[in-house]
């Protein structure tokens, strides 16, 4: 739009902002989190579980199909603003 108006601050453009928004979803719920790039995702996972009333031991978080470790952080996983974490519950089968 107004190219002249924005240059003063330019909050989004300069490389990466400190915070990013991450969507966490199981099949039913979507929760958005704002998290620092260097914060361990454990914090986010715990928060989500607490919110949903689940035990952190009973779910797995996937980013891009691979499992997220509690001590990963958005930087180490190369996450972008608006990325999604999927939450899955353990499922068992026998017959």
């Amino acid at each position: 739009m107004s190219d002249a108006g924005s240059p003063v601050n330019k909050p989004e453009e300069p490389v990466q902002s400190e915070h990013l928004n991450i969507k966490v979803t199981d099949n039913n719920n979507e929760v958005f989190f704002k998290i620092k790039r260097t914060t361990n995702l454990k914090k986010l996972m715990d928060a989500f579980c607490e919110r949903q009333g689940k035990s952190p031991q009973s779910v797995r978080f996937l980013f891009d199909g691979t499992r997220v470790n509690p001590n990963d952080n958005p930087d180490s996983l190369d996450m972008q603003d608006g990325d999604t974490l999927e939450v899955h519950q353990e499922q068992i089968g026998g017959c």
Partner: protein
Amino acid sequence: MQALMLDPELQERKDSLERAATNASRELLQIYEQLRTLFQGRKLDLFALLSPSTQRWIGLSYATFGRVAPFLHDIAQSEWRLESNDLLAEFGAAVFTSVNFLSKFRDFARSGVSWERAREALQQAKRQRQEPGAKLPRVAKDRDWAPADVATAMNSINVTQRRPGKRKRVVSDEEDQAEFVPNLPTFEEEDSGVNEEDKEQELEQVGDIEPSVPEIEIGRGIPIYTPPESISSPPALATPYDADDFMSESSVEFIMDETGHSPAPADVDFQGNMLETSNAQANLLDTGQKPRAGTRSLNESIAGDGGSMRRVVHLDSGGEETPERYTSFVTNKPFLTATPENLQTTLEGALKQLEPEGWLGQEAIERVLNMCTIYPFFSVAPLPAEPDRDWHEWSRSHKLRRKTWQRKIFVPILQSAHWVLAYVNMRTYKVTFYDSMASRKSWQSVAQALVAALGEQWDPQVWSQSLASDVQMPQQPNAYDCGMHVLLTSIFLMAELSLPTTYDCRLWRTLFRNLLRKAEISQPEIDTLFGQTLCADPANEHLRTAEGLMRVIEASDKHLDDVHQRRRTIEDASMLVSSLHTRACSATYLLQHERTSLETEVECRQRHLADLQTNGSLRPNDHQTLDATRASLSMSQEQIQANEQRQKDIFTLWQMVQSVRGAVGESDSGEVVMRRNEWLAELDRLRERIADFMEQRRKA
């Protein structure tokens, strides 16, 4: 265009119609193939017995899905521009079942001779063959069209000599023809009921209508042969086997598997082999004879792949499964214990699941496979609840793209609380499902979803899916071991061993548990694994009576049986694990080799960069290539580490198997045998004494 405008429901119904058509054709072919194998070796020709319309359907199905499809494609692309309908009108439906005929015909079509001339020659050849005193005595005279006709026709216009490099043998003399024609399967012995005279008249007519193809000088037709084509359709080899032996295998199951689209080294090599062997043999190698030796052939086809490259993807489909459903299930099935413990996504959860009679979850399967898989490509991703709808987005949001060289993908699938293994072979374009409770369920949609997730387009002409039947795959004798069957089947397939008839799930559960715990297997564990060691101690009071003795002897017999069985399963396990270990070692070796070459490359590039820098002609993209090489070097380093870890794990497993093996050693059963013999002798003595006693009493 219109398809896009359809609303979803209509679209879906249209798709299902198309699927139905495809499935119907395939089923038709399958039934026909089965019948055919029954007819093999009989003089009767199955095809000729069918009604003309059935013949037509089968012919068209072959043309669409069978092995002949690539040939037909080539023929349509050739100067003759003959579509399958033209061929059907010209030669009848029977030729579609003959790979030999069509492959020769394809060659003929490419030879640059005009269609008119070729047709004349073909007619001529057929008449010659059918003449009473024909010079090809062993060729069936009564059949309509034979591959030999094409060969003769080609001979008569001298087009056989082209492509000297590719063709192994050239059908140039009668001997060859006489030799190979009798080997044709029976169906050509007599041919479709089309009347000869009618046929020829029909031919004339068709000829009139046929668009005239410009005469092409022979030289132009020759160099058409290009490598990709050679892959998509193997050249017709005039070897004896090449006859229609194709058809005796299931050409339905392995559609166009010669179309190894990706010319990776392995494939090229394979193609080379194929040129040397006869087509039929090559096909055996490639696909195996599906119907009976399914598992074995699968293994062979793995072996043909130079199998160190694989990746395990791990999906589950029960997206809609909720704990609630489990609990309601639990009430019906008392053995199932879906507790907070075994639903944990932790090591403890996995161990809990691996306990005897426990249901397995993703956690256990993922962890075990992760340790046993030789190549560290393994990821977990659940299938969406409704693949049909969600799949596209799902496959976009997940990095499930395989590496180009990864050809074998093992996908454990969880569906309605039952684990099934899907094995995707990217080389033969086949998805095979291994179900330890084999049902007739259709896996079509799951197969399509999987293929889509792997970034491939499901094309029914290329991809096929099948279900390993219950003879090819061990069946679970209970309602809790399907996860174990999935684990063991994938490990056996990875180790390229044929599947045994049963799995010793109790043994493997113990082994896997210890592997995950990184603990040594203990004596008590071995003991519980195999039940009580011996049935009775000598001081037992049973041993005083005959009845007691007999019972003890029976028990020891059973025990000996058990020991025998146990020894066999442990030998199986030992073989499996050592094979895995060998593979892990060679994979590491390969990786190390790769690393060395990457290191050299990095060095070279660095030097190159330095050179460029001094020259001042450095471009930014030179840096990028160096960075890329460095990245792959570090990745290779990681892979080596991961692989070495696996190697260690597998070695631990091997040690455990060995210690179990030791425990199940000879001595144990030897002792039982000894005691059993003692008891038998004791029983005999007792009988004698009783007999003596009775005798004495009678006398008294």
